[in-house]
């Protein structure tokens, strides 16, 4: 991938190879992010196409205050959220449920720790179960399905951060730029999202549980 400044100059010159380079390089990430907001792969693909059209329309106005990729992903997320709202029928419930998504509750159930009268208050009462054959089972389709379901169940901003940081390999800085949020808040969202995905895997892989 060429550096941003070269890409921007080439795009403004309407250089097709530059456009093909970013479309091919970034569309898989854009598709994955869009898919988290809309009901089908087809709609996600439309959102990605619309994003690229908006990139062409707006490239002359791109100021380079963020990376080109952050700017493109920001456009994509705006479109995906708008489209998602349009397609969802239960908006009031969804927005109520997610209103406190940044939340401050514990990420592991309180009752998994010893209470004040325990032998060691605050230490595990019900520790994380050991995973049986994680090397083998984490990449099996069952685990992938559990992860996909856990990601789908996350509140939207937690999901966006987790996808960007842990699946797509974005930096914390990029995730903050895209979501217009502080580094600390980004980390809170990431923390909560990661804990839920780990918990889903714990449920699946706990030694002695399942098959």
């Amino acid at each position, binding site marked *: 991938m060429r550096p941003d400044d070269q890409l921007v100059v080439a795009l403004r010159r309407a250089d*097709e190879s530059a456009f093909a380079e970013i479309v091919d390089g970034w569309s898989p990430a854009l*598709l994955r992010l869009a898919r988290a907001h809309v009901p089908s792969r087809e709609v996600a693909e439309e959102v*990605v196409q619309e994003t690229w059209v908006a990139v062409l329309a707006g490239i002359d106005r791109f100021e380079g205050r963020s990376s080109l990729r952050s700017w493109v992903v920001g456009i994509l997320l705006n479109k995906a959220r708008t489209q998602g709202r349009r397609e969802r029928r239960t908006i009031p419930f969804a927005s109520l449920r997610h209103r406190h998504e940044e939340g401050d509750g514990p990420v*592991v159930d309180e009752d998994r720790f010893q209470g004040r009268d325990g032998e060691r*208050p*605050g230490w*595990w009462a019900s520790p994380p179960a*050991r995973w049986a054959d994680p090397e083998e089972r984490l990449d099996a389709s069952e685990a992938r399905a559990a992860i996909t379901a856990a990601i789908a169940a996350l509140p939207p901003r937690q999901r966006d951060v987790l996808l960007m940081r842990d699946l797509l390999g974005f930096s914390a800085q990029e995730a903050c730029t895209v979501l217009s949020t502080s580094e600390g808040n980004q980390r809170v969202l990431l923390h909560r999202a990661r*804990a839920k995905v*780990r918990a889903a895997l714990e449920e699946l892989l706990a030694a002695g549980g399942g098959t």
Partner: protein
Amino acid sequence: MTAAELTCRDFVELATDYLEDRMAAEERARLERHLAVCKDCRTYLDQMRQTLATLGRLSLEDLSPAAREELMAVFRAWRAQR
């Protein structure tokens, strides 16, 4: 004088700060003292690392060839108008 001992409940809430390396040295040392004596929190951290590694290995899909073709056609039309 040392800070109060870290509990497991504290540890799980600090796991991301630790993995993201966003802790003051002192706080980090306190967390590592807890890890040294707590097998269950080492398990938790290890599982978190395995979770992240697995997330990073999930595959992504390309745009369909038809959608890509459409986009390149849009690009050529845009170029023609510039």
